[in-house]
C-alpha cells in the first residue's frame, strides 16, 4: 500500500485494575483506508479502539502502557491535549447517540464548542456534513426538529455528520451498524466507502461480511492480543494464522 501511516500503535497494554485487557497490541493504520477490527466479544477490539482517542481515560482504574503515535506524536505523552486529540480523532458509537436537541444543533455542536458562531459557516458545515453522511436528503426539511424523532439509521448518520463537521483526520467507529437494520446498515456502509476519500476510518465490527465488503485492512483480535493483521483480501482468502482461519470460517466466535 502506498498510503502513508497515520496512526501507529506499538506494544499497547491496557489494564482494568489488575485485569489485562490488551496484551501488547501493535498496529499501523494508513491514511484514507478503512481498517476493520474483528474478533469475538470481549477480545479487546473496542477497548483498543477507545485507546486511540483516549476515551478510556474516562473509566477509573485504567492503566495504559505503550505508545500510540498519531502523525508521529505520542498521544499518551503527558503534554497531550485530549480535547485537541479528540477533535483530530472523532468517534461514532455503537448505539446512535444524538443529543436531545435539533438536528442542526447536533451537527453544529462540535463547531460551536470550538468557538465558531458565524451562521453562514455553521449552515454550510451542516449541509456538507449531512451530505457526506448521506442523510441530507432525509433531514434537510427538518433541521430544526429533534434528532430523536429520526429512525435509528438516520440518527446514526446524523451522529456521523456531527463527527465529520469537526473535520477530524481519523474517524473511529465502534460497531456503527450493529443497532441498525440491514437497509440502514448498507447505507452506512456505502457512506463509509465514500468517506474514506477524505478520512481514515477505523471500525470495529462483529459482522465479518461487512469487514470483507468495506475494509482495506483487517485486524483480528483474540483475548486481548492482535493475532493477525493484513490486507482484507489476504486475511479472508489466505490467513496465515490458524486461529484467524478458524474464526473467519466460523469454527468459533
Amino acid at each position: 500500500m502506498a498510503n502513508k501511516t497515520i496512526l501507529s500503535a506499538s506494544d499497547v497494554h491496557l489494564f482494568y485494575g489488575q485485569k489485562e485487557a490488551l496484551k501488547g497490541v501493535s498496529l499501523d493504520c494508513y491514511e484514507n483506508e478503512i481498517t476493520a477490527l474483528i474478533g469475538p466479544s470481549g477480545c479487546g477490539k473496542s477497548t483498543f479502539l477507545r485507546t486511540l482517542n483516549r476515551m478510556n481515560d474516562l473509566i477509573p482504574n485504567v492503566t495504559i502502557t505503550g505508545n500510540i503515535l498519531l502523525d508521529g506524536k505520542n498521544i499518551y505523552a503527558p503534554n497531550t491535549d485530549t480535547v485537541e486529540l479528540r477533535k483530530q480523532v472523532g468517534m461514532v458509537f455503537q448505539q446512535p447517540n444524538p443529543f436531545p436537541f435539533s438536528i442542526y444543533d447536533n451537527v453544529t455542536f462540535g463547531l460551536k464548542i470550538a468557538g465558531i458562531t458565524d451562521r453562514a459557516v455553521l449552515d454550510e458545515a451542516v449541509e456538507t456534513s449531512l451530505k457526506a453522511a448521506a442523510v441530507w436528503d432525509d433531514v434537510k426539511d427538518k433541521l430544526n426538529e429533534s434528532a430523536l424523532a429520526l429512525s435509528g439509521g438516520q440518527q446514526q448518520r446524523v451522529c456521523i455528520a456531527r463527527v465529520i463537521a469537526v473535520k477530524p483526520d481519523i474517524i473511529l467507529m465502534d460497531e456503527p451498524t450493529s443497532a441498525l437494520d440491514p437497509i440502514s446498515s448498507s447505507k452506512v456502509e456505502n457512506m463509509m466507502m465514500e468517506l474514506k476519500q477524505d478520512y481514515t476510518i477505523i471500525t470495529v465490527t462483529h459482522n465479518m461480511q461487512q469487514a470483507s465488503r468495506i475494509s482495506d485492512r483487517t485486524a483480528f483480535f483474540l483475548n486481548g492480543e492482535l493475532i493477525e493483521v493484513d490486507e482484507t483480501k489476504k486475511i479472508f482468502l489466505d490467513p496465515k494464522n490458524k486461529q484467524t482461519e478458524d474464526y473467519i470460517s466460523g469454527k468459533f466466535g
Partner: protein
Amino acid sequence: MHDSIKESLTMRSTSAKREFRGKFLAMFCTTIIIILVLSLIGFIASKGITIFVSDKVNIIDFLTHSIWSADKTDSQGRPLLGALPMIMGSFSVTFLATIIATPFAIAAAVFMTEISPKLGKKVLQPVIELLVGIPSVVYGFIGVSVVIPFVRNTFGGSGFGILAGTFVLFVMILPTITSMSIDALKAVPRHYREAALAVGATRWQTISRVVLRAGAPGLFTAVVFGMARAFGEALAVQMVIGNAMLLPQNLVSPASTLTSVLTMNMGNTVMGTTANNALWSLALLLLLMSLLFNTVIKYIAKKGTLK
C-alpha cells in the same frame, strides 16, 4: 364423576379468588384515599368561599387590597379582608429563596454527578440527608437566634422580615432542589457525555452544553418542587418573618405569609365567624397554589419525556 369435572371447570379457582380479593383490597384502599382527598378539597373549598358568598367580599378586593381586619367593615358593610400583604409575603420569600438556592443546588448536583461522585457520596449526600431530616421548628429556632441578629446587624431594621424568611427557606429548600437535581443529572445518559467528548468538548463544555441542557426538564421540576416546598412552609417562616399584616415596604420590615397568618391566628378565632372563615379562604388559596405547582411539575415532566 361427570359432575365433579363440570364443577371444577365452572367453579372459580383458588388463584382467581385470591386475585379478586387482592384487587378488591387495592381498589378499596385507593377509593378511600381518593374520597379523602376529594372531601378535603371540598371541605376547604366550601369553607373558603364562605366570605365571598355570605359576607359578599369581592374576590378581586380579596386578592388586591392590603387591609386585613375582619371586624371592620367598609362603606358597604363588607368586612375588610385584603390578603395582598400575605400573598406578596408568600411569593417574595418563595421566589427569593428559590433564586438563591437554585445555583447552589445545581452546582452541588453537578459536583456530585460529574466532578467528584466519590467525595459527593461520602460528604455531600449525608449532609443533604441531614438537612432534610432537621425539623422545621429547629430551623426556625436557628433563624431567630442566628439569622435575625445577623440581618439586624447587617441590613438594619428589627431583623424580622422577608430577608430572614428567605435565608431560612433557602437552607430548607436547598436539599430538596439538590437531591432532585442530582436525580435529573444522573438520568442524563452516559452516552451523551461520551458523544460530546468525542467531538472535542472539554469537560466543562460537556457539562454546560449537554448535561445541563439534556437534564433541563428534570432541573425545572426540581426548582418548582423547591418552590412548592417554600410556599407551603409555615412554622420556620412564621418564627422569623415578623408577622405584621402589612404590605412589605422593604426586605427587612416585618411581614407575613399565607402560612404564617394561618398558624398564628387559627387558634385565636371562633369557628364560623367571619375572621375564621377568612382564614379558610387563605387556606384555599394555598391549596390552589400547590395544585398549580403540581400541574406545572406534571407539565414539565410530560414535555421532557416527549422530546
